């Protein structure tokens, strides 16, 4: 375990170096924006809409006293989506989708000697392959999470009006009640930290693959599991630090 931490930090010290060529780095970055960000939009959208809808229905279902106004449904959905569901759950989903992709892509390059080829050419492979993925994830994930928040709230509204559990005006009024802008800052800080965890941990497991196809598959699984565990741990740490 300690050895793995050591290898991770040595790898990161090679990742966070000045790129060999800025134009190549920019090109890689654009590719990663597309493959890690744009290609994740579909799954983020679907999950967010359904997550918001379920959250709204569950909240409405649990309000069984007339003393609690129905605006609470909108309020609770917003708080749940902004504070926890979008940044954490979507990051966990991305750990599965993006994390496995990063680990298997880099792992395959390792097992087919493409990383050795980069090294022989005089390129810093860790920097060339992993840095654009980390930077792209840290920049694009806040956009994905912002979209997820909007779609989650929209999903909640859609569920309310289609089931008739809550009036549209009540839901919207709830959404606008007692809004603390810091909750958005909190969500974005979590998102950026989780994006770093997903890309760097997956990059690490891919980069350190030894062997063939089976080992690449195993590295990919480890990347998803470890990223998910770290996200959950850092979720607690960040919540404690930022909200108390």
């Amino acid at each position, binding site marked *: 375990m300690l050895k793995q931490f050591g290898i991770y930090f040595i790898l990161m010290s090679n990742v966070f170096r000045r790129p060999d*060529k800025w134009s190549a780095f920019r090109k890689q970055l654009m590719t990663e924006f597309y493959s890690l960000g744009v290609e994740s939009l579909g799954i983020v959208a679907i999950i967010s809409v359904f997550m918001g809808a379920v959250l709204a229905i569950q909240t409405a279902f649990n309000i069984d006293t007339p003393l609690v106004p129905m605006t609470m449904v909108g309020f609770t959905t917003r708080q749940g989506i902004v504070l926890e569901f979008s940044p954490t759950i979507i990051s966990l989903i991305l750990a599965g989708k993006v994390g496995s992709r990063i680990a298997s892509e880099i792992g395959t390059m390792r097992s087919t000697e*493409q990383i050795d080829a980069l*090294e022989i050419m*005089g390129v810093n492979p860790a920097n060339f392959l992993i840095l654009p993925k980390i930077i792209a994830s840290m920049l694009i994930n806040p956009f994905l999470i912002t979209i997820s928040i909007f779609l989650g709230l929209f999903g909640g509204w859609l569920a309310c009006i289609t089931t008739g559990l809550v009036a549209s005006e009540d839901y919207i009024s709830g959404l606008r009640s007692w809004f603390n802008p810091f909750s958005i800052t909190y969500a974005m800080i979590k998102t950026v930290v989780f994006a770093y965890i997903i890309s760097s941990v997956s990059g690490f497991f891919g980069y350190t693959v030894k062997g063939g196809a089976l080992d690449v598959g195993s590295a990919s699984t480890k990347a998803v599991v470890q990223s998910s565990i770290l996200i959950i741990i850092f979720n607690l740490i960040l919540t404690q630090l930022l909200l108390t």
Partner: protein
Amino acid sequence: MIEAKHIYKSFADNDVLKDISISFEKGKTNLIIGKSGSGKTVLMKCLVGLLDADKGEIDYDGRVFSGMSPRDKKRLRQEMGMLFQGGALFDYMSVEENIMFPLMMFTKFSSGEKLDRVNFCLERVNLKKANKLMPSELSGGMTKRVAIARAISMKPKYLFCDEPNSGLDPQTSGLIDDLIKEITEDLEITTIVNTHDMNSVLNIGDAVAYLHEGKLWWTGTKEEIMDADNKELQEFVFATELTKRLKK
């Protein structure tokens, strides 16, 4: 010229290289041969710096590679080209982009100059008009030729080929061998080829080094190898039924 002096390398308790001292001359195709597990690949990886030798020194034309700073190593590596066993082409890039990659990273060539160099390299390996193909569309022989084109795109002084004939039919193997020899002589470079293919040895082996159980067992030329008075080498050279019959 590349010189390896007293190279030792071990993994845990397994001593893979034991006191290897050898020099590889410029303008010649230097072959390292030996059975699987004899340490050929480890020696080549030590030479190019993919593995650090436990002990010993590696010199490139008098420049001590093993003791260089990472910056100097990086500069020297731009003088190296390597052909990997499986080609190691970047599978998300086309043939043209693969060959252009080192030029893009380390030269200030204009787009036109880069393309000219790519076309020259492709022509050199007899693969004209393959620019837009993807690695997945190439045959084994084509992959090796594109990998050679990429390896020579930066006009290297040192060319390393790890099992260039593995997985190829005898005819294509011969073509790859001829290509390596031609390039070595035309560009006056130091070429080191790692192989256990006896056809290659007899075809292009200007200088041959035989490794056995991590030790340098024999050195000589392709002419000398057939009559070498060395039991292990003779067993290796005449291991197949065909070579045994030819000897008789």
